[in-house]
């Protein structure tokens, strides 16, 4: 039997089974169990209506329980056990965790993941906001939007191939076929090279450090100079933001200093994905490229929802376009920005395919999801694999709680 025909038959059986369940279970409920006729028609209709929601929900609930809820607890259990030879498991407590914490590869994955968590949502949101604002003001905006949105449809693996071509390297005596190396070889160490490859990036890094410091100060200030009572629950969060900011500023300043002192190897084609630390950014660009479209679509809808009269009032007051954007529009869509940010954060935490296809965690580009895959399916160590999965779960938990809290608030 040809694979196409086999596929078709399985499709029909699978989908038919699903449709059949809903149709026949309702038929059974209405015609056999509580028929809407006879002496008890009224009572029967009421009873049928009490049962029907659960009939509708049943397949979904079963699937959700087995495929998402149960694995969370099972993974937790597995992370605390280890397989013994010959089958079965033994309880080992936190052994897997302490073994994992002793591995440098884990810390590399974790710190890379932190970098991803900051850079990708920040850049995607920023570019998305920029694209949304710009495209709303021009006539070909819709076309521009759909072109920027397009990478959303491309698989991570497809995107990996696309960007591998961009980063491709040929030996020095051949013509470069990767765009990045072709551009890189156009710089030859003259004043333009210094301007574009040293001064501009250093200014960007310093600007980034400054922006981080500003954000951190907003969070820390109430602790230093309490203007009023500081909400007790927010202190750990504020300290966490502060610590993260210090680390970020340090990283940015170190990179700026490194860039200022380093002798760039002009004229040498670079294998971009093997340059430690910086190769992380070359991988992140791929995800930023994909996620910007998502951020743009959501933010564009939010920007359109900004009440027209607030903008008109600002214009009457003599605000320039930049002031209107940053002081009138952005504050009003702050809620949406947070939503976009957290959604992309979750995507980042799950990012696996890009790293798997492009570098497979070599050259210090490991991330947690790929580390976990390595442990589970290459090292076949379910204990440590589950432990690293729990770390990912731990990192999403704050967002999970925040989302549930917001959803409940909205429903009330």
């Amino acid at each position, binding site marked *: 039997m040809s694979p196409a025909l086999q596929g078709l038959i399985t499709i029909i059986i699978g*989908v038919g089974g699903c449709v059949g369940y809903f149709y026949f279970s309702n038929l059974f409920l209405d015609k056999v169990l509580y028929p809407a006729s006879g002496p008890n028609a009224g009572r029967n209709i009421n009873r049928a209506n009490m049962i029907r929601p659960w009939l509708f929900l049943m397949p979904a609930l079963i699937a959700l329980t087995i495929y998402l809820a149960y694995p969370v607890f099972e993974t937790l259990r597995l992370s605390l056990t280890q397989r013994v030879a010959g089958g079965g498991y033994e309880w080992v407590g936190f052994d897997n965790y302490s073994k994992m914490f002793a591995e440098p590869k884990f810390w590399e994955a974790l710190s890379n993941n932190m970098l991803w968590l900051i850079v990708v949502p920040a850049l995607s949101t920023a570019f998305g906001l920029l694209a949304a604002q710009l495209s709303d003001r021009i006539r070909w905006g819709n076309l521009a939007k759909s072109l920027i949105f397009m990478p959303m449809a491309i698989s991570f693996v497809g995107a990996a191939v696309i960007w591998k071509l961009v980063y491709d390297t040929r030996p020095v005596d051949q013509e470069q076929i990767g765009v990045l190396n072709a551009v890189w070889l156009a710089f030859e160490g003259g004043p333009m090279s210094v301007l574009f490859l040293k001064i501009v990036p250093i200014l960007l890094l310093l600007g980034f450090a400054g922006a981080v410091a500003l954000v951190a100060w907003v969070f820390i200030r109430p602790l230093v100079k309490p203007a009023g009572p500081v909400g007790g629950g927010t202190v750990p969060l504020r300290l966490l933001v502060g610590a993260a900011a210090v680390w970020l500023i340090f990283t940015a300043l170190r990179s700026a200093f490194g860039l200022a002192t380093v002798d760039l190897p002009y004229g040498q084609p670079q294998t971009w994905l093997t340059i430690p630390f910086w190769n992380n950014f070359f991988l992140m660009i791929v995800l930023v490229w994909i996620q910007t479209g998502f951020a743009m679509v959501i933010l564009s809808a939010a920007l359109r929802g900004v009440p027209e009269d607030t903008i008109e009032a600002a214009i009457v007051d003599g605000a320039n376009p930049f002031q209107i954007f940053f002081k009138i529009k952005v504050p009003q869509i702050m809620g949406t920005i947070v939503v976009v940010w957290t959604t992309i954060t979750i995507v980042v935490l799950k990012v696996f395919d890009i790293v798997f296809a492009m570098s497979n965690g070599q050259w210090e580009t490991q991330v947690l999801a790929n580390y976990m895959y390595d442990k589970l399916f290459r090292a076949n160590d379910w204990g440590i694999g589950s432990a690293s999965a729990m770390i990912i779960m731990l990192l999403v938990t704050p967002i999970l709680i925040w989302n549930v809290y917001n959803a409940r608030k909205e429903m009330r």
Partner: protein
Amino acid sequence: MDNVVGKKSGLTWAVHISMAVLVALWLFPTLGLFVSSFRTADQISSSGWWSSLSTQERQVPAIRVAGEEVEVDGRFVIEGRLFEATNASVSAWGTSSTAPEANAPGAVADLGDGVTLTVAEDGAYVLSSPVSTEGTRLPRIFSTAATPPEFTLDNYRAILFDPENVDGMAKAFFNTLTVTIPATIIPILVAAFAAYALAWMDFPGRALLIAAIVGLLVVPLQLALIPLLKLHNDIGIGKGYLGTWLAHTGFGLPLAIYLLRNYMVGLPRDIIECAKVDGASDFQIFIKIILPLSFQFLWTWNDLLVSLVFLIDSTGETTVMTKQIVELLGTRGGNWEILATAAFISISVPLLVFFAMQKYLVRGLLAGSVK
């Protein structure tokens, strides 16, 4: 909106230019892959894809004169062509590597002993000798030719329709379809009924269920890999399509239910009544409502991890396109004509769906992001 008060903004040009730059940056990488998939291996490895779009003047690899010797008017003549392409034109040629551009097209070069060689602008050459050149070493021709853009469909032919090709994508394409279609339809059906119940039916525990679904929305599917693989092995499904469909259904459900519920709650009932009065059948209304869920198709089509864990066994019979591409990246890392074509075949279907359903996808995204 600066026009509100009648002031034309000087920023308009800046806006147009920055938007154009942004769009170009976003389009450029995909365009590179697209163009590369229509070039031959030689073309890809000898020049960047961006230069293939315009006429290129470059050196053609040296070619040794070869062909049938014909006797014409007492001279022995060999005729041939430097290249197959009929629209390329030679700008200079020579017979030694030290002077590859010694002669103009059409000029006659004397190679000594009365042997002459001429190369016409269209790449046809004529070697003429007073004695037979059979058995002797014939001269090489170096040439510089301007080649207009030239593209081929051979890559697609080789990868899609050549059953001998081990790198072929035809099987993987059908496998992907076999995974995708049920893994799109089943979750949408299940989610539609669940969302209907959550949006329009009243029953105890509804709010709690919705909160639980919002929570499950962010649970990383990485957590589910090992427990579910264990489960599948225990109940005898093992690795195969059934397990993959179930896994996709489970992982896709939270978002599908949440999105559909939001969407349905936002639909006033009278809109549906109106549609019915206008003659839309229940099925048509249902299709309209679930169209934003077409992202489930994109997601299952593009997936790698779920197939890797739940579908592909050691025989590799059930490989999907994403997995095949990752393998090609490993074994054919430098063969861009294979990689680019394979990747473009895999992304062309989602791109088509994307451009056809864009309106609904945007609607889905807007309804599906947690507010």
